[in-house]
């Protein structure tokens, strides 16, 4: 697995933060809430490391996930994971539903789908800008499962698959709510991404 230099990571982090920032803007507009989305750190893993990392952090809990497949110069899946607790907080803040509201389940899927979609769209927009190339997208899907099962779909075939893990903090200032969402990029043509980053950094290839 090719690793990224500190400069490359920095650049990638900046690009993703721009995308996430744009997503926050849309969320703010939609919900009249000052939402701050920030990715303090991006890490690169293979699947075993990623599973280990997420298990350490979240045990074997359930996650709500929005997944988007993309293809083009580089292909993969962008996945946004909401730990259960963060998901409830976000939904109740954004929709005004109390976390124990009987209708929350009905509300949940739609709400998380859209929020996940907005965040992923922001990040994908940033990345396709970076690559200056158009990507083709699959229809976003919503899933609920354990980390283990969610990552299973990645284990077929692509041994060289690289995971970019971006733990994102969301802060809603006036409500003093802080939470986690996790952005995972499963990239099967990592080289294309690294080349694009190098171009951006002015490193001759």
């Amino acid at each position, binding site marked *: 697995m090719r690793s990224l230099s500190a400069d490359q990571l920095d650049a990638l982090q900046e690009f993703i933060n721009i995308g996430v920032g744009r997503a926050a803007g849309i969320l703010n507009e939609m919900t009249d809430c000052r939402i701050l989305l920030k990715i303090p750190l991006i890490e690169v893993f293979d699947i075993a490391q990623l599973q280990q990392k997420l298990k350490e952090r979240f045990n074997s809990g359930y996650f709500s996930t929005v997944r988007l497949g993309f293809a083009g110069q580089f292909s993969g899946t962008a996945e946004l994971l909401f730990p259960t607790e963060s998901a409830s907080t976000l939904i109740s803040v954004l929709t005004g539903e109390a976390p124990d509201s009987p209708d929350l389940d009905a509300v949940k899927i*739609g*709400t998380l*789908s*859209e929020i996940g*979609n907005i965040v992923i*769209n922001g990040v994908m927009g940033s990345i396709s800008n970076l690559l200056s190339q158009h990507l083709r*997208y699959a229809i976003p899907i919503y899933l609920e499962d354990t980390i283990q099962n969610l990552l299973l779909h990645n284990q077929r075939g692509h041994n060289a698959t690289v995971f970019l893990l971006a733990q994102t903090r969301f802060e809603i200032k006036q409500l003093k709510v802080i939470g986690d969402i996790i952005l995972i990029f499963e990239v099967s043509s990592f080289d294309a991404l690294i080349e694009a980053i190098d171009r951006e950094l002015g490193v001759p290839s």
Partner: protein
Amino acid sequence: MTRSTDELQSAQAQFALLDQIPLGNCVLRADYAVLFWNSCLEEWTKIPKQDILGKSITEFFSHFGQPTYVHRFQQIFQGGVPTIFSSQFHKHLIPAPLPQGGNRIQHTTVTAIAAPEGDEFYALLSIQDVTDLTTQAQGYRKMRDQAIAESEERRRAQEEAEAANRVKDEFLAVVSHELRTPLNPILGWARLLQSGKVSPAAVNNALATIERNAQLQAQLIDDLLDVSRILSGKLHLDWQTINLSFVVHAALETVHLAAEAKSLSIQLHIEEPIAAIKGDPTRLQQVVWNLLSNAVKFTPENGRIEIYLDTTGVEVQLRISDTGKGIPSDFIPYVFDSFRQADSTTTRAIGGLGLGLSITRHLVELHGGTLKVASPGENQGSTFTLRLPIPKEAYSEVVIASGASVDSDILTLEGAHVLVVDDDTDTRTFLAFLLQGYGAEVTLAASAVDAIVALKHIHPDILLSDLGMPDVDGYMLIQQVRLLPEFEHLPAIALTAYAAETTQQQVLAAGFQKHIAKPADPTMLVVAIAEQVFGSSRMRSDTRQSAGFCQESVA
């Protein structure tokens, strides 16, 4: 315009397939012109294709012009990532009214589709109707919540049942302890007396101890039987017209000694006249005795007990106040609970099962009355207030002052010949001893057969028979006796350990005049025999009025 018309026509061909699927579909150009409008949307919105095609969607649904939508659609028109509009944030992107009111709940996904020419992108809206799904999910959720609530309810009920069982187990533990306690001195002294090693001076003390403890145990058993009858709803009242002041007097006499021993002052305030009430004299005396003896029990030496009896409109009210140890406010709600004692250490220190008040309240309620308790707090005394309803009709009849005590010194059975039938030798011996002590002539029979023989031989004045005997029991005996013409009207008293009311009815129906529960109070037994033989309890002194009855006129 020509471009527009061509584009519209080619769009109809390009997207014709979307008419065949159960989603609402429409295709927008970057200028918001509607290029395609599928038949599903026609049906949902009631807007036909020909009305909307080629026109801006904002003419029909103005919110498409709002910045939120403009920004996100802009991304699509540039070939960006598919965008989701959830029903939660966007209620109804393209409102589709439902016949029953409201709009369909929609989930919309917008994807970018490359336009046939140039590098433009169209926006394809795919609208999923999730109305039924949402309703169903809510229905299932309600069912689930209900099931959870029901199982929670069952769990709670089970816990309550288990708790009640625990209370009963604890109660049983206390019962067996309390029943055993009086047995120790009884057995101990009985063995010592048999050994002949007791000095004559100590004999009286030993006998007094045995008697006291036997009485205590009899009381415990009575209480337990009462509780069991109350719990099984089998407690029946022998309704009579009574004056509560007699009941109070009688009860007072029974606690008199105990009160004197503790130097308690008891003050009785009766506001005559006291209206007559309907009730079971024995049971009401039990109620008053219980309240009084509690007051005596829980009031320290030199304390004061005040009894107020008056008539208030439709009720007779009895208040018993003491300067005793009172009741902590948190225990007041449980004072009358069955199987629920106050602090068990206190119960032990004072003795008894703590069943009295529970029985008392049940008895009062059976009489249609109320029993309330008030206490300012621990060590500040307590006041029990008993109220019993006055029956509406006015009458004048004999009012029984139940259980009026009789001075045993002046009772006599002289001239009475008693035939005692009991299979238990000890009981026979005891009865012979007792009755002879009051001057009666006593003949003993160990079985019903012996009794019939003796009967014909000695012609007694009264038959005193046990009920439970082997071979021929007391019921069969009395039936046989009544078949003999000369003994058709012979007074007969049944003595039995089965104190239930059903037995009482059976006993009287079988032919006995009276039924006395074992262990019988010797004085009561003698009084009963005297009443049966002489018509009333005959006393040695003629100046004494006969106890038990008095004439009372009631308005």
